[in-house]
């Protein structure tokens, strides 16, 4: 079973990495979603795999439970990654509407930096 889970997580990750290396925003968003699946399940799996032992306490039974901590962490991680996906989707949508294409790379003229200040603007008395 462990082998199946690990291979599934690995496949998700590989698919995600391949997709984020594409050139269009939509593919990158899909890739990030895939990576999210991989990471979340991975974090969950660090509590080790246990079948049929949910972390819900029941009276008078001291039986073993599964590890609740990774579950709590992953639960918020799922919700937060939704928030992140939403922001990224809106950003790519905004870029597409504003710029007219959905390329992920920065256009060369956006990378121009302002020229450096030179020494000529030093105070007057220093030059005197």
């Amino acid at each position, binding site marked *: *079973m*462990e*082998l199946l*889970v*690990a*291979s*599934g*997580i*690995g*496949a*998700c990750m*590989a698919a995600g990495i*391949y997709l984020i*290396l594409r050139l*269009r925003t*939509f593919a990158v968003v*899909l890739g990030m*979603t*895939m990576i999210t*699946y991989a990471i*979340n399940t*991975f974090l*969950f799996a*660090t509590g*080790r795999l246990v*079948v*049929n032992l*949910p*972390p*819900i306490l029941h009276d008078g039974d001291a039986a073993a439970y*599964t590890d609740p*901590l990774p*579950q*709590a962490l992953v*639960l*918020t991680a799922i*919700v937060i990654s939704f928030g992140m996906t*939403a*922001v990224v*989707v*809106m950003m*790519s*949508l*905004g870029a*597409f*509407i*504003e710029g*007219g294409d959905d390329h*992920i*790379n*920065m*256009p060369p003229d*956006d990378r121009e930096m302002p020229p*450096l200040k*030179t*020494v000529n*603007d030093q*105070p007057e*008395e*220093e030059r005197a």
Partner: protein
Amino acid sequence: MSPALIALLPFIGALLPGLLVRSGRSVAAMACGTVTLVALLGLLLHIPAVMRGEVITARIEWLPMIQLNANFRIDGLSLLFGTLILGIGLLIIAYARFYLSRTDPVGKFYTYLMLFQGAMMGIVLSDNILLLLVFWELTSLSSFLLIGYWRHLPEGRQGARMALTVTGMGGMAMIAGMMILGQIAGSYDISDILRSKEAIQSSEWYLPALILILLGAFTKSAQFPFHFWLPHAMAAPTPVSAYLHSATMVKAGLFLMARLWPVLGGTPEWFWIVATTGLVTMLIGAVIALFKDDLKAVLAFSTVSHLGLITMLLGFGTREAAIAAVFHIINHATFKAALFMTAGIVDHEAGTRSIRRLGGLRKLMPVTFAIGTVAALSMAGIPPLNGFLSKEMMLYEASHLETARLFFMVVATVAALFSVGYSLRFVFHVFTGPERDDYPHHPHDPGFGMWAGPALLTVLVVLIGLFPNTMAGWLVDASASAVTGESEHAHLALWHGLNAALIMSLIAIAGGIILLRRHEPALKSWESAPRPEAKVIFDTIVQASVLAGRWITDKFNNGSMPRALSFFTLTSLFAGALAWYTGDAGPLTRPMLPVGPVPFIGWLLAMFATGSMVFFHRVRLLALVLIAIVGLITSIFFTYFSAPDLALTQISVEVVTVILLLLALNFLPKRTLIETSTHRRGWDACIATLAGLGFGGLCYAILRRDFAFDSISGYMLENSHKLGGGDNVVNVILVDFRGYDTFGEITVLGIAALAIFALTQTLLQGKSSARLKNWVHDQRRAGDRHPMMLVIATRVILPISLVVGLFIFLRGHNQPGGGFIAGLVVAIALLMQYMASGYAWAQDRQNIPFHALIGAGVVAAGVTGIGAWFNGKPFLTSAYGYVKLPFLEEFELATAMGFDLGVFLCVVGAVMLALNSLSRIARQAGETVNEKPMDIDLSEEQKGAH
């Protein structure tokens, strides 16, 4: 008054100007002045105890685990500096009231000034070097704000930046030095460090610590070769120059050297580094000051020179020299602050600080002339003023050195000679000489408020000169004793007999007068001589490092995202591989779980969906369907492996995400074209496969091994019911054990939703708004936008889903469920309504503002957390009880439920706000509003018919 309170008072005072500035400048000045006065009185009340040789301390634990405690002390040295800081601060506050014009933001000025005053008091009162470092950095920051106060002046901004760069870097070095010092001494308390002289001086880390600490002190006190920032800091308003750059901040470095003098001083290393640096600084400062044209620049370089003098005295390492140093600190503060204020008055009244354009002000400004002359003569070291006394002592110490005596004697005399020259120049080139008719303003004496401060200081100059023992002897004794750690008694007198010092002094005065007479030819040769300009060098270095930074950034990131991401992936892979091959993971200890047929089918499905998703990712709609399959399998995976909460969350998030992506896809292109070469895709596939193998391998390695350390989960399982009152441990962790995290997370979610809203807002304005108005949809629209079946079904479902949401919310504490899941379920129920009947139609039928929902959620969670305070418990401690309602099973009411309600509201608000934003974009792009819930859009059909 407690030392801690004295250090705190200026910070309280910093709040007042902002509150009072609308009542006028005078009120703000009065408020700051009162606070300063109270602190000063509080400090002076300790004089009797300090004179008895006691050290007053106050200890407050702050971060005891790293030995950072708010420990304060008052001894002679703190008393001396504290009196200077608060006393001169008081005069400066009054002076600035009249100096600043009506257009200057006065409230801001006084706030910065008080912040600075507090930081300085913190330095001199700290009994913990880590605390001292905190205040040290605060002085750098507040002086940055003060120098750049006139932000419209480029000189001010550049000067501020230069000061911050130089003193900030020195501060960095000093942090390292102090760390070493504390490690050697085994304590960060100054009281303890002062007792460990042997340990520190015999340590092999002594020299590195000494150099690093001295770097901090030298940069702050503008010692050569870091002296260049001080003259540029003179772009600040004159009250700031007078306060920071003559009387207080630049003396912080001296203070530190004096404070650590007993443990660091007395070694040959100390002597050569400190005394030589001081000597060189003294000479260079004096020479440059003679040839400067700007009045404040003259004073700035003379300050550099005098700071060098004091540094040199401290460097001598003898007790007598320490006394002279302390005495000169007092004297320099009095005459130099008076001189700065005089320069400010001249600038204010005559309209210029350029000495070439001044002269002949004696008759026009008699009061200012008197003040300036006395102070300048004291600076020149003319008897019977106080500057003469300490300069004599300096020359005396130089002539009694055991090593390199002649060298120090000659250079010190030359420096004193130049000092006489520039001091007399201040008098003769500004005040005497023929009256001119081309001053920018009509010079006249200012009002009493402006000259009162400098006049008071000049009176002190004369009195200390005439009656040194009565006026200053006690303060010198107390502070010198604090420096050396032994009981000191200074012999201050005007006449010491005919000795070497007197002869050197006479040479200096005579030479200075001759030098001033020959000033014009000397100036010509000075100006024609080549010399390095510190600012040019500084700017070149800064520019070079900026360029280097840009070059490195450019090399790593050329704007190509795939390139940056593959770098990142490969680096992570490399780091992981390195860790794997150098570390030891231990044997496989966990047996594998058996694989049933159903999980195997699930695995096949997931792998198949993943593979096809990558293969078909260019057909975007299909890719969405496939990715949803992966998401569903993930949620089944969670169910199977005992995580019902996660399964519920995953499936509802999945629904919301897919809806969001679908809505976005409405605008985005529906297909991705092939733009990369086969070669490139193969390379990317290689990287991706490696990453997948690595990640999967890591996962497998973890899954087959037991925990290396005991997990804290056991505690949570054990105490979930006892402390949190809930049986669903995951939910109790979320709302109780780790409630702080959750609180942060819902806040982040809310911020994300607001960011989406803000993005939409900008899209709906300007260029993109016009684009949207003319948007051409690339696909035909459906005729029945709101199918009757869907509308009816969602109507029926809505109340049911709301009840399900409520149910999930209520049971969450004990059974799978909770605020997150309930919020998502309710959001989906609403979303379906919006999708079926159209956004505008549905929106008209409810009036919940989603922003408010997010805000209410965060507030509800916060208030629940704060509620615990009234129970005397820390933030977010929950209390609970059980409630039995008729006809319902017993359920539990915990305060955690209020927190969960916050989570719920926040999630609903965030999801709905994101949808709302997309729908607003759609409206802008011509989406029409339906009046009926299920109308049929005939426009498309008509288009089709034509």
